[in-house]
């Protein structure tokens, strides 16, 4: 199984890449902006970098890159399920429209409800 092991050189390289990404993300967080879109973009980039770091660790430090297909599936499955949790919950929060009259539905008259729409 030692075929799974990477040469030490690889670990060092991954480590350096992680540090570079770390300083990149810190630097980006200091970009001065008050604009909402820009801030959202920076947040997104920040978490994308975090994701990249996680992928580096998973692939090399945790040997998934050299792992079996089963390991790949198991490593990925939790994140897929997390995506379900996030997507369907945030969907509720992003689409909670203002209640009430904002919909401006035409008046429904007594006895004509089924024709209202």
């Amino acid at each position, binding site marked *: 199984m030692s075929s799974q*092991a*990477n040469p030490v050189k690889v*670990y060092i390289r991954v480590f350096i890449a992680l540090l570079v990404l770390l300083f990149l993300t810190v630097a980006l967080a200091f970009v001065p902006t008050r604009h909402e879109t820009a801030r959202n973009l920076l947040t997104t980039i920040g978490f994308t*970098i975090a994701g990249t770091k996680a992928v580096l*660790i998973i692939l090399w*430090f*945790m040997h998934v890159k050299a792992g079996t297909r089963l390991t790949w599936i198991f490593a990925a499955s*939790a994140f897929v399920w997390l995506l379900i949790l996030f997507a369907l919950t*945030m969907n509720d929060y992003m689409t909670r429209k203002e209640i009430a009259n904002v919909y401006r539905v035409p008046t429904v008259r007594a006895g004509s409800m089924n024709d209202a729409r």
Partner: protein
Amino acid sequence: MTELATDLHPNKALAHHFTDMPQQREAVTLGMWLFLATEVMLFGAIFLAYTVYRHQYFDSFRAAGGHLFVSFGTINTCVLLTSSLMMALAVHAAHQGDSKKIVRYVLLTILFGAIFLGIKMTEYVIDTREGLVPLNGWWKAQSPDLRVDREMRLFFVFYFTMTLLHAIHMTIGMAILAVIAWFAHRKRFSAEDYNPVDVTGLYWHFVDIVWVFLFPALYLVHPEMHLFK
């Protein structure tokens, strides 16, 4: 955890119900990956709550995040990444059956983990002095604006819950690593039988990954506020 790492016969490496070493090794590794999947969901659920409130209270979370020290956070991330590297090297040594190196690198992993926890403790002390603990009587960062105040508290609820949960995981990991170091010292591992080192490494890297996400979520919300303080 310990179950997965050490589910071995006391005297011989192969447990009675496995037919051979590869089967046992694969089973234990797979078990650890599944365990990590549960951990992803555990931390993920708190991240979800955090995301919901960050989405709703963007500005207050920004104001609150400004109270954290990005310098501490960054140094700690470096420390933890280094500790992860040490763990990777320990596993590398295990693959080659070099017990001495295993002991050395595992101890280094523990050392960096301890440094991390030390820095975290220092930070907690400073947070407490600054009145950032979101408990009545402890909370002093009060904003004149009621809304900002309660939303900042919410940020710190997440800050403390998530970092404490992470710290608990690290402490457990360090305890297991100590056992691993002892076993390695007693020459319990060989190039054919190093699985406990391997799966403990997986766990340790996972704890590292959690921090990789915690760092931007907590420290980089509004970093410029405290940098030169």
